[in-house]
């Protein structure tokens, strides 16, 4: 088995807010991230797929195909969007769009598509909010 990782970038805005809390508590816990007009990041999405190389092509999965899956399932929804206001999983579920929750949400968007590739499975999604901050999800174990 070998792991293959592809990166892509997207830019989005967000803010951190828990409706169940007072403004004061939100500001205390989330600091500047609680400012309601939001702020933005250049995110990097890293998607890791594991499998055995196909004996004919030598590929675990075709990287162009993986790029298209990432584009269709994640980037088209997240890139140049306000996560709290425009991305369904954060709007409808009032899920705070932390890097942790973005990693899980991206996983849920990618997994059904990635796992249609014969013999390959999604093993890791890592989301960098800045070059110094990232969250990683390896699926429910």
């Amino acid at each position, binding site marked *: 088995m070998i792991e293959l990782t592809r990166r892509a970038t997207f830019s989005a805005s967000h803010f*951190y807010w828990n409706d169940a809390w007072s403004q004061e508590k939100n500001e205390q816990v989330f600091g500047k991230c609680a400012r309601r007009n939001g702020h933005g990041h250049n995110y990097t999405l890293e998607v890791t797929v594991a499998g055995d190389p196909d004996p004919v092509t030598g590929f675990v999965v075709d990287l162009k195909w993986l790029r298209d899956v990432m584009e269709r399932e994640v980037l088209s929804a997240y890139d140049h969007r306000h996560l709290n206001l425009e991305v369904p999983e954060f709007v409808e579920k009032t899920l705070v769009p*932390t890097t*942790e*929750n973005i*990693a*899980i949400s991206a996983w849920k968007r990618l997994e059904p598509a990635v796992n249609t590739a014969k013999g390959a499975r999604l093993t890791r999604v890592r989301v960098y909010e800045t070059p110094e901050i990232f*969250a*990683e*999800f390896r699926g429910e174990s």
Partner: protein
Amino acid sequence: MVHVYFGRRYHLSASHRLHSESLTGEENRAAYGKCNNPHGHGHNYVVEVLVGGGIDPETGMVINLAALDEVVQTSVLERFDHANLNLDPLFVNQVPTTENLTRAVFGVLKDALPVGKLEHVRVEETENNFFLFQGE
């Protein structure tokens, strides 16, 4: 509970000299090369800390970034940044290779986190080499 990993990278600059008291001068030079030069040298280290755990449903976080920063600042950066690693008590009996620095950082952070489990410490000594410790 859903298990997620949160990672954060920190920078520290420190000096060290790789020299083992149990080797002769010649053996030290053979083993460590330039790193054995008597007055030491320095690096800009990058310390990556990975914390695993469940997501707090109220905050959406594994660990609050500010809380992690404070722990790393207090227990790692204040101790090792702009310091000579050879003079730290941890390196009295062991050579301050980046392998040993990685284990040392893991050791001081492991029980200091307010929440979550320390999954790994990864230290980059230069852009081209790094060391990873995931605990015993």
